[in-house]
């Protein structure tokens, strides 16, 4: 390989037909050509920047650095030679910065003269550089090693387990046990359980994540977590990414906590779809897809949360509510003494009140009350005091 000239390298890459893995599509040959053109135009030195997509919040594909480090680095080297650039950098996200302490990795990087950077890729920093996905580097290395047409690589991790290499034709259902789960998160979108019939190639799992949400987990909360993680990852420069993610996160949170409005669904669609083309890197462009797919594929679930305060996973709202009957309460305080959530308010001789939001539905207060004032119901609540009221003084 080292004996090939730059042109020969480029021809071979073209022959192999390698496509860039991940969210930035395009033939590798084409992308190298673009970077080279920019180098010429700006007089820049050019560089290879190898990283995951900025949108990748899970980073499971980083396991390739443990499993196939040689391939990654060889791929980077080949790309550098093809581009005619000397500078080679590997980016690892902040949440994976412990990798920087890995002695083996550090040594290998040193040998290949690849420098390590922690943080997402700043797409504005260097126009004349080639962004190379980790997996593309592996594909490139393999294609040259086997001297054959490139084989598209598919790496997935099911529910956070070990990264495995699979065939593109493998079905999700074969790889993961769906059971009675209703929600799948494949790559950067949510799917209903039927999507398990898709093949890995069809499902477009750019970050290697296959996650089956167990029936007790709520998609709204999961989407909220994804938005929060995206916000943490965002550099904050682009308006749509920075502010859009905040709005999407806020709306998911409000819906999960029972304060959602029907307007939020349209607003999520409006902001989310605008975000897909209004950011400069894959984070701002792709993160909204999670919220968008959740709201569109699971609209009933969202409407249930908003209109009826019902969560089919049983995670967001409890069917049961514990309350204290103001007529029976003597203000003794036995219930608040045992409450593990410390969510019962009251003073001696005052009617006690349970905070439904913080209540963990453990039932200890019901056991502790000697006057039978604590009630657990699945039905409508009676009128309850909303401020501290002396025992016996509550008028409905």
């Amino acid at each position, binding site marked *: 390989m080292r004996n090939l000239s730059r042109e020969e390298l480029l021809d071979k890459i073209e022959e192999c037909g390698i496509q860039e893995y991940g969210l930035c599509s395009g033939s590798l040959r084409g992308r190298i050509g673009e970077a080279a053109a920019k180098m010429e135009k700006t007089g820049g030195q050019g560089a290879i920047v190898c990283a995951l997509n900025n949108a990748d919040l899970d980073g499971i594909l980083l396991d390739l650095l443990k499993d196939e480090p040689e391939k990654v680095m060889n791929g980077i080297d080949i790309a550098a030679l093809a581009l005619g650039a000397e500078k080679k950098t590997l980016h690892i996200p902040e949440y994976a910065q412990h990798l920087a302490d890995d002695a083996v990795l550090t040594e290998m990087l040193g040998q290949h003269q690849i420098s390590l950077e922690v943080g997402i890729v700043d797409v*504005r920093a260097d126009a004349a550089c080639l962004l190379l996905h980790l997996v593309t580097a592996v594909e490139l290395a393999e294609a040259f090693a086997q001297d054959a047409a490139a084989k598209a690589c598919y790496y997935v991790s099911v529910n956070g387990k070990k990264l495995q290499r699979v065939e593109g034709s493998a079905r999700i259902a074969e790889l993961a046990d769906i059971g009675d789960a209703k929600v799948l998160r494949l790559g950067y979108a949510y799917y209903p359980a039927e999507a398990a019939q898709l093949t890995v190639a069809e499902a477009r799992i750019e970050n290697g994540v296959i996650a089956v949400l167990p029936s007790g987990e709520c998609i709204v909360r999961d989407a909220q977590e994804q938005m*929060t993680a995206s*916000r*943490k990852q*965002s*550099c*904050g*420069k*682009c*308006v*749509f990414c*920075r*502010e*859009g993610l*905040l*709005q999407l996160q*806020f*709306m998911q949170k409000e819906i999960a906590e029972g304060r959602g409005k029907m*307007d939020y669904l349209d*607003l999520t669609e*409006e*902001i989310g779809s*605008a975000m897909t*083309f*209004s950011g*400069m890197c894959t984070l701002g462009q792709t993160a909204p897809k999670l919220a968008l797919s959740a709201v569109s594929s699971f609209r009933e679930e969202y409407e249930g949360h908003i209109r009826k305060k019902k969560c089919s996973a049983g995670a967001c709202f409890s069917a049961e509510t514990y309350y204290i009957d103001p007529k029976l309460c003597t203000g003794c305080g036995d219930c608040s003494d045992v409450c593990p959530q410390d969510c019962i308010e009251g003073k001696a001789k005052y009617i006690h009140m349970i905070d439904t939001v913080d209540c963990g539905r453990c039932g200890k207060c019901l056991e502790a009350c000697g006057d039978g004032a604590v009630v657990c119901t699945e039905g409508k609540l009676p009128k309850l005091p909303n401020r501290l009221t002396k025992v016996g003084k509550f008028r409905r």
Partner: protein
Amino acid sequence: MAVITIDGKCLTVPDNKNILQCALDNGIYIPHLCHHKDLNPLGSCRLCIVEVEGREGVTPSCMLEAEDGMVVHTKTPEVERLRILALELLLTGHPEDCSTCPKYGNCELQQLIQYVGPKTGRMKMRTKGFKTQEENPLIIHDMNRCVLCGRCVRACNELRGVKVLQYQKKDMETYVGTVHDRLLKDADCRFCQACVEVCPTGTIRDKLADANKKKEDVVVPCRHACPAHTDIPRYIRYVKEGKYDEAAAVIREKLPIPKSLGYICTHACELECKRKELGEPMSIRNIKRYAAEHDSGSLWKGKGKQLPDTGKKVCVVGGGPCGLSAAYYLRKQGHAVTIKEELPTAGGMMAYGIPAYRLPRDIIAEEVQLIEEQGVRIETGTKVEKPVELLKEYDAVLMAIGGHNGVRLPMEGSSLPGVILNADFLRNASMGKETGMGERIIVLGGGNVAFDCARTAKRLGAKEIHLACLEAREVMTADDEEILQAQEEGIFVHPAQTFERITGEEHVTGVDFMNVESFTFDENRRAIIQKEEGSEHHIDGDTVIFAVGQRPDITPEAGLELGRANSIAVKDMEKDKSTSVEGIFAAGDAIYGTKSVVMAVESGREAASQIDRYLGGDGDISEVLAPVETANSYIGECKGFAYLERKEPLVDAPEERSDNFRLYDHGICEQDICAEAGRCLQCDLRLQISAPSLWGDFTKATGGAEE
């Protein structure tokens, strides 16, 4: 060049120039926020989006390069929808209320809201929760108002190269600040204030703002404070670069006597210098002196303006800094100028007031000679009694007679033998004549002139010298240096004293004083002095020198109307220096009382301009001597910049200097001068930054304001 179409308008623009700037340059407004003409595009605000025929979707026009045949639409429904959405998102993190913001009326975001149309209420609003950072000198950071346009980051990193401001994150909230939130001083900020200049909102603001002054005067206060408005930052920059000829040329565009001023100017500029907010102000006078002394004259000797002879003749009465300056510029306008000077040499107060140990006489002579070389005739030893007579021979007359009569305070004993007036004393000393002083001197007065008298007396061999004044130490008008150096030389300084009487029968024996408790002026400028009970005390002396002011040496017999304090009355001290007699003008100390040499120079320049107009010229005395070039805006990093200390000049020790009239202040040495000049904040660079494009600047036809 590329021919493009924007909203139906056909334009020819340079290839690859960004479409947004092409539009703005051609009178088409496209809303924008993160874009700034002087900075590389960021493409983050998404307000400048446009649709390009043949391309899908929308593109930010700041990052779109012009290509021949491109057709652009800036106002399609989709573009407007997305633009409003972008602004809506931006405003969720911005305070809702404009009315409490100091930037109200001056805010680019506010005018964008006007143009694009506000939309709030749909989304979750928030206060970012940052505390306003007011601990830094000169610059306030109010991050709650930040819209992350990134202009300040680009200005600091790319335009100036100082690299102090970066994007930071606190609990998922992005903001702009220094690494580890250090104070600007500790982050090596150079306080060039480019960040303030480019910030579109009220986030990064000047601490020292003054709505009543012109912006330029607030941004570059040294230049504004200088009566002659010398371009100080520009010549300091040249000195830093070792280009002394260029520096001297800049100075000479405004001042014909830079060397003399380099020795004794009262440096109003230093008192306003913004560097003082970080520590000590710039040592501007010494930098000027260094430039003038190392100047070879290559840029101005034999060059500069000289208009052809006009045939008009002007007589300037008085050869001090005012008269010399006026004569110089009148000559350059082509008039024939003669200076009539009463004393044996030209120089005025520079030669006969300011002692030689502060301003060597050969320096004055050198600068006077340059003025003569320009073609000005100087007649010394000539006193003019009747200025009106001069009009028979001259087309215009300028009275620049200064104030050479010392004021004698009316008090008991004020006419006793042994009482001398400041102006007489200093003049005689300068001419090497008998001054009439004894051995024990008491100087009454607290200004620079009083100290000139005291220190001159010291050098003439007086045994004991006391200086007393009405003002308290902190408000004495003399420079701190003067007071300190005088004390080092053994002169006793007594502030806050009232002069009760001068004692003695045949001759001065001393002065009675009382201590002042408080001293103020009422609305009619009358002094109200509160004396301390029982504090009468006496100081012995055989000589009393009054140093409490000077008046012009003129009487009503001269034929000119006189004003307050015996000054020559003029119609307007700044705008119209004509006197009660047509054709006669007056300027300098003679019209406004004793001020400073630099003010006299400026007054002379103004007078020259006005007289030139009177004689049929255009009154424009400006000239260009220094190369016209834009200063380099990339100033780079400088570690510890804010902590650099002011370099002091080399000054002879008291023992060496107190018994002679040799120059004792040798200015800043060669090793230090570059470092001193390097301390400058370069506030003038801020004015090079392009002004923002607001929708109201554009023509009606495209939805803007009037032309």
